[in-house]
């Protein structure tokens, strides 16, 4: 067992309000500069929808991720090594700017400098690339809140397998449903971007699992952009280098949460250490499709297990990190409570960001002008346990996003979440005076795989966490690492360890 640590983020989708604060925080910090205007290392998309870049989940088109060949061997979907080199001159699977959008701004100056006239002056949109006027026809969240669902929601790749009946239902105004899906780079265990880079410029950091592009080594072959099934590597058109989410490692190294997580208005994001066994990566990534999700969840090791602790020590993980791993809120949600899943595990990259699938209202019908919940009247206390199919968000759809089309894990999670809800409702509303619940409620919890303590903990970490509960960062000891590589005193009086030359486009 070779134990390694991974900084992981958990997204509680039930809490996301789709405010895009995270995206803007990230943009202001990292991508507000020439060549990067179109990049959203963090983006929030409305689902059902085609996301950003448009249709990124369509791997027949973009060829992202890995696949298992007939002999059970793992292969990049994009290319063999020879193909990767040969296709450097032209990469047929590369998204074009139109698949993202032509970044635009407005000619605000015209408002002040325009000639005096009858009508109020307007600021026309111009392209941030060419500076020429553009007709804005798409954007990173063009289909926000189901805008244009005739084109976008309808063409959602993950709708496959959702019955026509349910789909038709979703188009009715009364039954329409959506949820938000914030996405960053998944800092995968078996990253396809790393595998596809012919120059070997992308790598995974051993100590915290952050996947980074070494831009000094990047030669702009763009294979990573295609190979990442989540489309989270972006090509900077002015510097000619690839860029991606860096999980705000400079912030984490100083004990601060990444900008997106820190600014999250819905407080949906949690961060903490997960431990995994590096020896199992290949085996996990090449498991057959029906065992894949389980194999990935099994990769994550229990930081309280004496065997793991010994192995971690042998692998050079320091005690501070182990302590942090034991307090990790992500571990609690993912392993202790089994509430979270990775996004599209079928891409076989071992995505390390986890999602708690959202609950949704019950399908209702309009009857004589009244909205009626489609549930037997004696069961109106949201006890949906046996009626998950009545949830507006089709379970199959969530399963396509998070569990390779298998509804079972999703049902399991939704059940847990609903029973925690019912439990708290009975405790604090129905029996507010005593705060006690009846045996039936406890049975309901047990049925979902929980006990009272767990339900209470889930409730607390979901609704009442402080910032210290949400973000548990290990001590990075970056100063030690730097001393091993550089003599800090030799840099005395200089302007830091960063770029020796500014990151400008070469000739």
């Amino acid at each position, binding site marked *: 067992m070779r134990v390694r640590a991974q900084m992981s983020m958990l997204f509680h989708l039930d809490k996301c309000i789709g405010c895009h604060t995270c995206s803007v925080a990230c943009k202001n910090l990292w991508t507000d500069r020439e060549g990067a205007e179109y990049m959203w290392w963090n983006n929030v998309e409305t689902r059902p929808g085609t996301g950003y870049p448009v249709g990124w989940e369509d791997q027949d088109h973009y060829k992202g991720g*890995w696949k298992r060949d007939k002999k059970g061997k793992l292969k990049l979907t994009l290319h063999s*090594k020879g193909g990767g080199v040969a296709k450097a001159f032209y990469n047929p699977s590369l998204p074009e700017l139109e698949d993202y959008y032509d970044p635009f701004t407005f000619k605000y100056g015209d408002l002040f400098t325009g000639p005096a006239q009858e009508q109020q002056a307007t600021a026309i949109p111009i392209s941030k*690339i060419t500076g020429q006027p553009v007709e804005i026809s798409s954007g990173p969240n063009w289909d926000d809140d189901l805008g244009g669902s005739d084109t976008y929601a309808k063409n959602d790749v993950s709708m496959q397998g959702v019955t026509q009946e349910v789909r038709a239902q979703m188009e009715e105004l009364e039954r329409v449903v959506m949820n938000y899906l914030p996405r960053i780079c998944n800092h995968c265990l078996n990253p396809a971007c790393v595998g596809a880079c*012919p120059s070997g410029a992308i790598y995974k*950091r051993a100590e915290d699992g952050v996947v980074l592009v070494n831009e000094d080594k990047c*030669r702009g072959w763009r294979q990573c952009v295609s190979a990442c099934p989540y489309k989270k590597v972006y090509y900077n058109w002015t510097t*000619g280098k690839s860029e991606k989410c860096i999980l705000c490692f400079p912030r984490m190294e100083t004990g601060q949460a990444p900008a997106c997580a820190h600014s999250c208005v819905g407080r949906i994001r949690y961060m903490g250490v997960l431990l995994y066994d590096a020896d199992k*990566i290949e085996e996990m990534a090449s498991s057959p499709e029906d065992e894949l999700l389980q194999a990935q969840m099994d990769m994550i090791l229990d930081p309280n297990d004496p065997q793991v602790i010994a192995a971690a020590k042998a692998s050079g993980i320091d005690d501070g990190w182990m302590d942090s791993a034991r307090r990790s809120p992500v571990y609690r949600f993912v392993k202790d409570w089994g509430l979270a899943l990775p996004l599209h595990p079928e891409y076989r990259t071992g995505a390390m960001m986890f999602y708690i699938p959202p609950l949704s209202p019950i399908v209702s019908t309009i009857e004589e002008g009244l909205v009626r919940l489609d549930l037997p009247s004696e069961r109106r206390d949201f006890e949906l346990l046996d009626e998950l199919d009545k949830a507006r968000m089709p379970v199959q759809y969530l399963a396509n996003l998070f569990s390779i089309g298998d509804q079972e894990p999703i049902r399991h999670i939704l059940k847990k979440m609903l029973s925690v809800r019912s439990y708290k409702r009975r405790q604090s509303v129905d029996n507010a005076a005593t705060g006690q619940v009846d045996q039936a409620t406890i049975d309901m919890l047990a049925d979902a795989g929980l006990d009272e303590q767990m339900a209470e903990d889930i409730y607390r970490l979901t609704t009442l966490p402080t910032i210290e509960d949400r973000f548990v960062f290990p001590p990075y000891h970056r100063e030690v*690492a730097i001393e091993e590589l550089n003599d800090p005193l030799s840099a005395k009086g200089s302007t830091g360890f960063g770029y020796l030359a500014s990151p400008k486009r070469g000739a």
Partner: protein
Amino acid sequence: MTSNDFLFGVIPYVVGVLAIIVTILRWRMRQFTVSSLSSQLLESRKLYWGSIPFHWGLSIILTLHFIALIIPQAFELWNGAPLRLYLLEITGLALGLWALFGICVLIWRRYSDQRVMTVTTKSDLLVLGVVLVQIITGVWIAIGYRWGSYWGTAVFVPYVRSLFYFQPNPDLVAALPWVLKTHVLSFFAFLAVFPFTRLVHIITLPLQYFARPWQKVVANRTPSTPDFEPNTTGGSRAPVVVGADDSRV
């Protein structure tokens, strides 16, 4: 010194030294600037018709040139039978025309697409100009001075050898027609601009890809176990130590 002596006896050394030294310096001190500077993200359709013929046509022809200059015997042997000579000539001409088509598309693309024009620098145009002259004179020679693969080795090999042995003999090419001279001189121009422009990406052809495992893991700290190799780079300014690559998937 005649102008011929200067152009074919001095210039090759100047551009050769320039190409080597500046490339090394740029690689060591300004590696960030070394990139293919692809503009495929901004425009893809025309690039398809331009880039593939241009790159493949030129790489194959350039390789054939080098083979002819380094092991001329190979060409002499191959051309022993007239049929094979025809075949080689036709292939060469076809590749030249293919590359010519490619570069024309690329030039048209630069000027017709607003976005590509935005990222176009003077140095890009210089590169296109130099390579265009090379391709045009090359195709011209293939048509106007036929059987180049046959006489070429006899004319150029002694000259190139004289350069490599540091006993330059520019007289060997003094009597050549101007088209041939231009073809050679444009190669010198190519070498001269090589280290200063995007052409430098030619040396980054990522052959090391074949040798490495798919995954790459790097450690910032030297862990206490042999899991990762310890830092042996000494005073390196590199912020990372390349550790053991793993997960040989």
